[in-house]
């Protein structure tokens, strides 16, 4: 797999305008996420972790600096082009799951394939297979409110991976789960990272969890204060 880096950020900043006041959430972040990486993103609340995740996933655009996702310059892409880039290269896992209510697990997982133009039958087949890989082959037609929290997050993980992305961005994926369930979800993410080679970038507040990652990036006040890859630690 001699792919280039999955995501590259050069001096990326992001400033929010709030009632005429500029709130700098990111102030010049540079980093590279390589193919198959396993990165833990840590830092105190408000340090800009989620903001960075949104940028890395092409869900938001930087106020300054350069951002390259999957070899494509984000600044040069139109909204539909960026949507397509997200669809093809990024999988998101959120703390709050964000599953569609009143929609079966298999249809939730199939959703990204809708926007890729995959036919209904193939969508279901691929979604069902993906649910099997996260251990939910027996829950295809359950709705979110008929699933436990851990099961819901596993459905969300299946949804993130059904498009076969290069990067999985997980913002506190175990934040809404008890420790046992959280550990199982974490193991699943790590297994998928190894099995399918998808790069995993995960925000966590848990030092133990962070310690398991191959690479740790620490943030504070909108800047990266430590990156184990740059320190010469394990990583790409």
């Amino acid at each position, binding site marked *: 797999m001699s792919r280039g880096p999955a995501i590259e950020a050069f001096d990326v900043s992001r400033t929010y305008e709030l009632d005429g006041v500029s709130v700098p959430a990111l102030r010049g972040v540079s980093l590279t996420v390589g193919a198959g990486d396993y990165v833990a993103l840590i830092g105190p609340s408000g340090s800009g972790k989620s903001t960075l995740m949104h940028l890395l996933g092409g869900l938001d655009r930087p106020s300054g600096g350069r951002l390259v996702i999957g070899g494509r310059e984000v600044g040069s892409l139109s909204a539909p082009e960026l949507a*397509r880039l997200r669809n093809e290269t990024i999988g998101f896992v959120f703390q709050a799951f964000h599953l569609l209510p009143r929609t079966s697990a298999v249809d939730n997982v199939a*959703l990204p394939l809708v926007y890729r133009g995959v036919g209904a039958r193939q969508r279901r087949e691929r979604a069902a297979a993906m649910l099997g890989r996260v251990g939910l082959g027996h829950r295809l037609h359950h709705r979110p409110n008929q699933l436990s929290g851990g099961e819901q997050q596993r459905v969300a993980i299946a949804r993130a991976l059904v498009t076969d992305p290069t990067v999985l961005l997980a913002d506190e994926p175990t934040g809404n789960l008890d420790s046992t369930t959280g550990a199982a979800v974490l193991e699943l993410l790590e297994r998928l990272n190894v099995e399918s080679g998808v790069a995993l970038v995960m925000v966590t507040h848990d030092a133990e969890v962070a310690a398991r990652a191959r690479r740790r990036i620490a943030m504070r006040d909108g800047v990266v204060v430590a990156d184990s890859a740059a320190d010469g630690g394990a990583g790409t």
Partner: protein
Amino acid sequence: MRLAEAWRVAWDALRANRMRSALTMLGVVIGVASVVLLVAIGTGTKQRVEQQVEGLGSNLLLVVPGRLDMGSAPALSPLTLQDVDAVGRVVGDPNRVAVTVASGATVRAGNREDFTTVQGVLETTPTVFARELGRGRYLTRADVDTGRRVAVLGDAVARSLFPDREAVGQQINVAGVRFRVIGVFTPLGQSLGVDRDDEVHVPVTAAQRLYGTQRVDAIAVKAPDRERIDELGDRIVAELNGRHPGTEFSAVTQEQILGVLGDILGILTGVLAAIAGISLLVGGVGVSNIMLVSVRERTREIGLRKAVGARPRDIGVQFLLEAVLLTSVGGLTGMALGVGGALLVAALSPIPAAVTWWSLALAFGVSAAVGIVFGVVPAQRAGRLDPVVALRAE
């Protein structure tokens, strides 16, 4: 593929909020139903009027004093029976000329009475106006010449005065003068709320004596030749203008009457449809409102869809379809109600109603268009939502 998904999502959204969707549709339902119903009544009325004007007989020319422009006051007629003879000479056949001098009068028989229209006419009336006698005989030339007090009753008058007796041969009393019933018309039915069987024909000469006048109200001519009907009208008007300097006369054909009536009824139908259309607009505003609510409620869903690759357009189309589906289902329901209402009106009331395809197509098209027009703003808003902000929404 994406469109199919958008339809499915739109449909699910409507079903998930059944009560709200139904209430929102109500405005469109009422609007479309009233458009369909009112247009049906307008069309039905127009058709019936046309039938009736045509039913008067063919090649008819109506000669009246005054101009037939709308807005000019009807003039008091200076026409007399001498003018009628003159018109007969212009036409070349006195049997093709009919007259009327009409007035409301109370007609009595025994202790029964009826207020009706008493028309003084010539014996030519059945020929000119294609009227048929049910029983007895019509007036003769001799009846008219001698001013004989004989009467032919409309079916309604006959039934009112003689509910359980044969009217022909009986005596009636018209404004204090005794007449003998010699015939009864075959029934014609209602038209525009007027009972066309509520009339009594007597010789014009007898009527003139009864009303103390020499005048006749109008002259009708059955033209022998359809092609030259306008030219004949001109010659009659010229003759009458010569005989009555200073008074204008008009000769109108059935086509002209139909044209004027058609215009009036067309305008009326249009106005009714426009009024009904306003409720459609109000319904559209309701749709717009509920779509904005729907967008707000599903903000997180929108954010999520964008996160997994939905383009702004995909989201916009999804909500636009939801609005169009809402108004289209409302439109179809309204059409069904409107058609049902029209059938009911036609069956149970004297008001005619005829449902036309174009009004259905129009109503459906308009309701779908209302969905597009009033769905566009909420749809655009949904499409432009910032996914990060949307995902954070409560």
